[in-house]
């Protein structure tokens, strides 16, 4: 997919704004055409496309995809809520995922998370889904295994992967957000 991740995120904080362009329609139709036997199989690719385009998947996205694939809205919503990758509200411009699976947890990902949380000035406890800073610049959440247990703790900033992120490295990462 050529669409850069998080494109449009800034413009759509608070609402799933933005135009459904002919380009988007074309991309979607191309994805659907990859599943000639069951259109329903295109749900996940379309959800990814929508989230990459608009930053998150709100009711507008669910309904658009459902119409596109002749599904009921609930059948799309089920998937949106099932996969942690999909989000139903806009995240910050810089979204951090901190692994909390066992090796990272042992490697000190809790400290990393707390450091990031402090740097971003976020209040909640982090275990109830993503936290978003008031200015919409940062968001932070725990994730499950990011598949690099040997270099724990690991952090995902938007689409970039960082290893051995201790508190010092965390500060650098936040400072590096431009």
């Amino acid at each position, binding site marked *: 997919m050529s669409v850069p991740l998080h494109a449009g995120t800034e413009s759509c904080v608070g609402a799933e704004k933005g135009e459904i362009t002919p380009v988007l329609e074309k991309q979607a139709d191309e994805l659907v055409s990859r599943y000639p036997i069951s259109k329903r199989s295109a749900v996940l690719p379309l959800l990814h496309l929508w989230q990459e385009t608009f930053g998150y998947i709100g009711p507008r996205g669910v309904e658009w995809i459902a119409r596109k694939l002749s599904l*009921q*809205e*609930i059948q799309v*919503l089920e998937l949106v*809520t*099932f996969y942690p990758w999909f989000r139903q509200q806009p995240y910050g411009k810089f979204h951090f995922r901190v692994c909390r699976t066992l090796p990272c947890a042992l490697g000190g990902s809790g400290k990393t998370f707390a450091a990031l949380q402090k740097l971003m000035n976020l209040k909640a406890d982090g275990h109830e889904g993503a936290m978003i800073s008031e200015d919409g610049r940062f968001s932070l959440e725990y994730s499950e295994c990011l598949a690099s247990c040997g270099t724990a703790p690991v952090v995902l900033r938007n689409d970039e992967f960082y290893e051995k992120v201790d508190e010092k490295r965390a500060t650098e990462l936040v400072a590096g957000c431009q």
Partner: protein
Amino acid sequence: MSNCISIPMNPWNHDVAKDEKDLVDVQIDGVWLQMPRGLNVVEAAHRAKKFIPHYCYHPKLSVVGNCRMCLFEMGTPKMGPDRKPILGADGKPEIAWMPRPQIGCATGITPGMGIRTDSPLVKDCRNGVMEFLLINHPLDCTICDQAGECKLQEFSVEYGTGESRFVENKVKKPKNVDLGERIVLDDERCILCSRCVRFSSEVTKDNVLGFVNRGSYSTLTAYPGKRFDNDYSLNTVDICPVGALTSKDFRFQMRVWFLKESKSICTSCGTGCNVTIGSREGKVHRLTPRENEAVNSAWMCDYGRLNFHYLEDKERLQNPLTKAAGEHFPAPWGDALNRAAEGLRKVQPSEIAVVASARMTNEELFVLKRWMDELGVTLVDTVNRPEQGDQFLRSADGNPNTRGAELLGLSHGGRKLSTWGGEIAAGRMKALLVLGGEDVVAAGIPAACLAQLEILIASAILPNATTRVAHVILPGAGFAEKSGSMVNVHGRLQRFSRSIAPPGQAREEWMILRDLREIVTGGNSLHSIEDIWKSMATVIPVFAGLSWGKIGDQGVDLTHSLPAEATAK
């Protein structure tokens, strides 16, 4: 039978084998039996009088295999080097048992298959599954409507441990969710079997239900902003194995173990869905569908299911009433019937007309017909009741027994009736009997016109514009209060039995007509439903060879013997 199936063919029907005659040998709990090839193992065990417990499996819905309750031990015949089954001392194949259990709902039987439904492994599996299912369950049976018919409760007693080892916190989920106009959902009771989700997507095809979130937090919900208001929504309450989906109409009304259940049919339209009436102490509490593949499968519409509260109506006619000085007064049955008979004797039979009802039973109609024939009354018709049918179970005919009334020659589709206003106004029609609670005022004969009649006799269960001007009112019985049979729009003869007593002095209409007949014509036979059937079977060709007993609980298909014009519908 094939041409009378009214509902779209169910693609699942796991309780029916593809070919019932293609039998294979299977061993179920040590006993060799013959079963149709490919039959679902849960159903095969059922046929062998064994029970494999299950939650998500339903014979009329697709198989998802998510509850894991139907685990059984499976074996296949041991093969020799020649790829032929090794036979044991008893001449039957020796079975090699698989180390791990299989789910019965998603397994079809194959030749020589071994099935164990009660081995230690199977018992252990069920015990484990029960423990998992109960982990987050609120265990609120004491206030739960499903108690008494709850599979979770029953299987817990049967296969569970009786106590919980779970010391962690239970997951909290939404309670008292207003899912639709007739349904309330308790998500904590839900075991995520997905029967309701499958019902709404496979049977009614307008699925708004689904599971959101994942793992322990999976939650049954309707899409935000959408309501589960389908006219078949209450079927999900029936198939919900636990107390998650409850009917707003029935919840907190009655403990199910107090209900007396009687086999009946729904009389709210021409389909005649088979139902079970649950009543207690003379009050009907609920109707639930009773399985009949030739009529309604395992379903019924919400309209028909809830259309019984009129039996409880405060306005119910409970006493025979006669009119004197412009007012109705209660009268004993004898007086009321004598008054009616007297009125009828004063006029010529040709001046008498009868509005029969296609809501009356065949038995009632037959007694009426007998009486009319004896007296020489020929003017008779019924009131049409066209409805907006759907493509599923709701018929476009709002009368439950149109075919029966036609068979007995008492219906002319309302064509005659439309001319009777003029006949009465012209003074050619002097007596009118309006039966079965029909309202001829609503059917087009003005009340002022009815006032010109010398005698107007009405039988009804609720007052209407016709009873208001009637000289004699005879209180009848509702469908749950009487026994009888009807012929549905597809030509299937079905019977129903009295569940509760009619209120006050009200009586089953065939008894009223029987007594009226005795007074008016002196004819006295037909003293029981069985008597009526004996007579009806000799007079009505389509009913030849039939009796009350032979109709049975599933009814009899008459399409092969129905007259051509009746079938042409």
